[in-house]
């Protein structure tokens, strides 16, 4: 099976992108965006995590089985968050 070889340039670009995004996260923390504070911070974090998974962990050029594994683990995370939130979001319904 031929392995896809990622070039050093790609690694460096991703690395600097992660550094820049870390800087953005810190910078945004000094700006009060109201309810968007958490949303922006989480969005940047998710984007960074995606870069790590796709490039540093080689998922982008992996076989379909590996991709299915990654997607299903994300689905499991969704179950964890979703059913937990089904508790928190409905606690006030009884008034």
């Amino acid at each position: 099976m031929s392995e896809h070889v990622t070039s050093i340039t790609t690694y460096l670009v991703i690395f600097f992108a992660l550094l820049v995004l870390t800087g953005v996260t810190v910078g945004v923390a000094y700006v009060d965006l109201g309810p968007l504070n958490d949303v922006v911070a989480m969005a940047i974090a998710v984007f960074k995590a995606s870069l790590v998974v796709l490039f540093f962990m080689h998922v982008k050029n992996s076989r379909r089985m590996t991709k299915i594994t990654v997607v299903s683990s994300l689905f499991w995370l969704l179950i964890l968050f979703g059913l937990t939130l089904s508790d928190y979001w409905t606690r006030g319904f009884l008034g």
Partner: protein
Amino acid sequence: MSESVDTFGRRLHYLNADFGVKSWLLTRDHKRIALLYLISITIFFALGGLMAVGIRLELATPQGDLVQPDTYNRLFTMHGVLMIFFFLIPSIPAVLGNFLIPLMIGAKDLAFPKLNLASWYIYNIAGFFTLWAVAQGGVDTGWTFYTPYSTTYSNSYVIATALGVFISGFSSILTAVNFIVTIHRMRAPGLTWFRLPLFIWAHYATSLVIILGTPVIAVTILMVAAERLLHIGIFDPALGGDPVLFQHLFWFYSHPAVYIMILPSMGVVSELIAAFTRKRIFGYKFIAGASVAIAVLGFLVWGHHMFLSSQSVYAGMVFSVLSMLVAVPSAIKVFNWIATMYKGSVSWDTPMLYAMGFIGLFTIGGLTGVMLATLGIDIHVHDTYFVVAHFHYVMVGGAIMGYLGGLHFWWPKMTGRLYPVFWSKFAAIIIFVGFNLTFFPQFLLGYLGMPRRYHVYPADFQVLNVMSSAGATVLGVGYLIPLVYFVWSMRYGKRADRNPWGAIGLEWNTGSPPPQHNFHEIPTVDWDAYGYLPDTPAGTGESWGIAVPTQRQDRTQDDG
């Protein structure tokens, strides 16, 4: 198939191919690692059992007259921690799964033999870590480590014990990764997914649960440690946290962990029922699919542990319905096993006695689980002995019965020796009687309102408690008898041939004990699992030593 022999003409196998402590401690042979695990988990089972002795002795009288309340808290906590994390979770996968998966799929070993050995070392390091915590004074939070008690108030060794559990998780994960890769990549030619023994399907499903669930408990334990040491507010309301969040995260792993314990046991029972009824298993694909369904649904039900935790009543309803759904694949398995037995040529050998024990006890455990999933009933019996009885019927009556059944079925394969038939049947019956005497009264106690985790109780409850303590003694004797005759058999037992039960499966087509690399030639499989002929008699315990040939076995021998 040609057998290797040593210079004295003795048959070479994995037990005599190498000698010395180093050949065991540095082995990469899955069969030897399985035996190493067998020794380790037996030690932890004995230690967990000793804690149970302490609990049952204390509860023989209504007064708290044997141990201090604080000591009692530590006894039941350590009983739970040792039995769940260091015995039940690794028991069948690490011993029987490790030994049998490569043999059943016609492989020479697991995919990652060094990781397999590493998992045993990690397990032992975790075990010693936890035992160190016990020696220092133990932990008193209950095996559930509920916050904020565990993070703020308990002055016992919470972090040390929890880190022991954390480390043992890595051992589980390594085993599970090994199984999944092995089952995907190393099946013998022709061994398609739907030709696999159901034992393999069960272990595949279990491995999925381990990989998806264990990281969550690991992260949760780290958060407990972070809150306790660094006072970061995650679970403690005083620090801005939420204690119920801990319960969500804890049970996201710990409820599926029940399926980590029971699914492999179900895999064993499928093998036993087919072998001792001489029939193709009824509804093969449904039983295989039910294993995966239980693994998936098992992740959607954790909130039923939290009906009285201030969890939203709407979430409670959702979890209640989802919990009842798990009963469907579980019932599919039980009905299919019974349908397999119908008009089968049933023989009551020792492993079959355990399989029958499993079906009866698991059914009681499962049905009381449905009761507990019902919101109204759970509010009445929550945190009472009813719950204790329920999960012991599943974990001890289910998981341990399956483990012992499997051990008795494959012991001749693992050691090349037979054990005494009479004593093994005697022990199986003693265990069944002792188990019911111990735990059935606890259903009644719980229904009458006796709470769990208390070391004093009203005098009215004494008769049932004495019955339970007496049963525990019988159960303890029942567990000791196999320990004695298994050890005895390794030296004095009659030698087993390759297939003492006349069973079908690749593991029975190689020597007992198997050669170092399992098969002299990798087999090619062109048949479905469990191809028993209706009129083929079972290899019974009485006729041990005489292999009963089946058409399948004849053919594979001809092939060799």
